[in-house]
């Protein structure tokens, strides 16, 4: 097949590749199985400590059980063999001594006498002697008729004992001594038997020796080995526990440190002592944290410096801008008297200076928000008056339909409200075309409004009615993909919605101004068509934003002013009532 595929048979190659693919699921299956097992282990033994203990215990158990087992079996063998050999040798000798000289035809009484004599040795076994009696045929005589009868001797043993073997150079005797271990009533016994060698028929002797003492010895040995195994297991588990503690303490410290690092405490370091793997891990952690801290510091320093650069730059631009602005006004007033060739140029300079002025103003405003130095100058105002004045000041009265009742009072920064309104209405006029509808009303914030709660920052406070100013245009609306970005800085939407004012900061500044009041702006498309911007502000910005802003006493002058002002106001409160 390989040769065929070398020949360039595409079918074969395809077959190969198919085969290859057939194999893959198998591999996947095995890795999956492995992964499944790992998951199972992780599920059953969820903690590293438990796993360590289990592994230690398993190792200890295996070692102890195999050692005890080997020791037990060796001992058992030795003990049994020794007892057995002693008994059998003794039996053999005693048989020879007592039954060897019996005549081939004996009386049963003679056999019993021989059996009693044989049993009278130190080895303490029962003896049964069988022989051919002259009168009654075969006769069996035991040292103890109750404990040992021929029925106790297994038939196989009797057969082996009685079996006559041919005598040759390898086998010098026709009969041998045979033995077997048996159990009678649950007690172990050794039973052995031999035929006396001589002129047939010769008597056969059997012995029965109790192995109970050996069994008891072995049992007590097994018990001690079992206890030793148990102790070893316990010791291993304690050791595992200790090992787990020493291993896991640094691991826990590491986890704690990693958590702190994640929470932004980049100066978190571990104490790394020793030269083991965990110490190495701690050192690696420290190096990583150090590198991370350095990187973050570098990035924030870079960001800080670029912000400061923008702030300084816009600041620096202000002085020449002041000079230029003052002069352009002079130029503007002189326009009619100028050469018609030069007048358009002057006009361009004047209008572009104004744009540049706005841009610098906006830039400075943005840098103030970024640096957190923007402050509210609060006053109690009639919102309808403010909106009307804002529209009036920009000559938008004809293009705006105002739906606002006088008498809605709010405590806010009038200049910032004007910035927001001018941006929203200006934006609507530019992109939606007139007429733009502006409506002012108050609403109780919906309790479910998470963003409201977050921005107002006081869900526990009594619900304060909020001010809602909606600016709706009749234009084509905002494309869905642009909607999330309308408040981004310098976000250029499609050509259909160009930033004709050129600053690209207007809506972003409007949003920042709403935020500093503790309010926010949302944009959506109305079902009837056209974009709707909703400005929501708390009725009293002081309670929300002002309170926290005045909390930052960052310079002596402002705090002294506040003290004086507060003193004055509290004094007034006293005499007012």
């Amino acid at each position, binding site marked *: 097949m390989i040769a065929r595929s070398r020949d360039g048979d595409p079918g074969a190659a395809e077959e190969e590749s198919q085969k290859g693919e057939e194999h893959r699921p198998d591999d996947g299956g095995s890795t999956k199985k492995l992964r499944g097992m790992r998951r199972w282990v992780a599920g059953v033994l969820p903690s590293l400590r438990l796993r360590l203990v289990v592994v230690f215990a398993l190792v200890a158990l295996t070692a102890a059980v195999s050692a005890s087992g080997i020791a037990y079996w060796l001992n058992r063998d030795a003990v049994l063999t020794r007892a057995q050999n002693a008994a059998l040798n003794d039996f053999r000798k005693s048989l020879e001594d007592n039954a060897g000289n019996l005549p081939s035809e004996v009386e049963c009484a003679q056999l019993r006498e021989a059996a009693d004599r044989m049993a009278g040795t130190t080895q303490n076994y029962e003896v049964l002697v069988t022989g051919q009696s002259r009168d009654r045929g075969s006769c069996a005589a035991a040292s103890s008729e109750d404990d040992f009868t021929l029925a106790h001797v297994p038939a196989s043993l009797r057969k082996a004992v009685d079996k006559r073997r041919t005598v040759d150079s390898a086998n010098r005797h026709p009969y041998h001594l045979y033995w077997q271990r048996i159990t009678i009533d649950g007690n172990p016994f050794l039973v052995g038997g031999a035929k006396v060698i001589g002129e047939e028929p010769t008597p056969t002797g059997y012995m029965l020796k109790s192995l109970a003492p050996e069994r008891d010895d072995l049992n007590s040995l097994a018990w001690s080995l079992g206890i030793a195994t148990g102790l070893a297991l316990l010791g291993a588990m304690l050791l595992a526990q200790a090992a787990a503690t020493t291993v896991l303490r640094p691991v826990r410290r590491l986890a704690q440190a990693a958590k702190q690092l994640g929470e932004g405490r980049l100066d978190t370091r571990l104490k790394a002592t020793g030269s083991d793997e965990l110490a190495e891990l701690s050192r690696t952690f420290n190096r990583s944290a150090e590198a991370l801290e350095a990187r973050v510091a570098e990035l924030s320093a870079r960001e800080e410096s670029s912000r400061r650069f923008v702030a300084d730059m816009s600041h620096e631009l202000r002085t020449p801008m002041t000079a230029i602005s003052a*002069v352009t006004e002079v130029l503007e007033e002189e326009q009619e008297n100028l050469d018609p060739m030069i007048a358009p140029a002057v006009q361009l300079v004047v209008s572009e200076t104004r744009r540049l002025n706005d841009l610098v103003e906006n830039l400075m405003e943005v840098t103030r928000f970024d640096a957190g130095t923007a402050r509210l100058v609060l006053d109690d105002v009639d919102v309808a008056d403010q909106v009307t004045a804002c529209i009036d000041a920009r000559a938008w009265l004809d293009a705006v339909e105002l739906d606002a009742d006088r008498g809605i009072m709010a405590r806010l920064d009038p200049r910032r409200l004007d910035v927001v309104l001018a941006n929203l209405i200006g934006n609507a006029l530019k992109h939606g075309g007139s007429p733009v509808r502006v409506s002012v009303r108050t609403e109780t914030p919906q309790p479910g409004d998470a963003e409201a709660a977050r921005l107002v920052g006081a869900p526990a406070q009594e619900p304060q009615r909020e001010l809602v100013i909606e600016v709706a245009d009749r234009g084509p609306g905002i494309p869905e993909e642009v909607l999330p970005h309308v408040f981004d800085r310098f976000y250029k939407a499609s050509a259909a919605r160009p930033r004709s004012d050129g600053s690209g900061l207007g809506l972003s500044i409007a949003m920042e101004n709403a935020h500093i009041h503790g309010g926010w702006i949302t944009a959506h498309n109305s079902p009837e068509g056209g974009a709707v911007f909703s400005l929501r502000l708390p009725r009293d910005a002081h309670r929300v934003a002002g309170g926290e802003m005045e909390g930052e006493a960052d310079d002596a*002058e*402002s705090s002294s002013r506040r003290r004086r*002002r507060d003193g*004055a106001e509290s004094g007034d409160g006293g005499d007012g009532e």
Partner: protein
Amino acid sequence: MARVAFLLLIEDDDAVRTALEMGLTRQGHRVVTAASGEDGLKLLREQRPDLIVLDVMLPGIDGFEVCRRIRHTDQLPIILLTARSDDIDVVVGLESGADDYVVKPVQGRVLDARIRAVMRRGERESSDSATFGSLTIDRSAMTATKNGEDLQLTPTELRLLLELSRRPGQALSRQQLLRLVWEHDYLGDSRLVDACVQRLRAKVEDVPSSPTLIRTVRGVGYRLDAPQ
């Protein structure tokens, strides 16, 4: 029509000084300029201008200090040139005795409007007087006396007192006062009113920290009452 104002412009940046001088001269004012606070104070003593336009950022003694030193001896109107980014500047400037401020980059028209508004504050209009406890306001002489002693009030402070005294017992909002006294539009900075009220209280009240004449009406503004 107001008479031609004689201005002292203290500004260290040559370009800004030249441009503003040019613009203000074109608006019909007579302008002398100084490049530092020390020069400005010297010119003030020599030339006795009607009004000072003062840059905050000056080499040597800064605008605030110049303002404070002028207030020791003189009650002439001072307009600060400041930057809105330095909100503290505005507050410190108003506390050191400035009557008004203009944010840089300055538009010549705005500055001119402010100058004219400040100049108008010193003009007399009616010829009656009003008394609030120990305080007597003589509208024909444009003076205020306390226990018979003349009070040293700046034109702005005097105008604020006049506007309040014209509606005794009636609370005036800060925005109303900004329109009446400073001739600012709807975006007037309420801190101007607060700072001026503080200065006025320091001069007319027996105990400035617990005023009995000019009282704060919480959520509205200020009112002038005869003490009970």
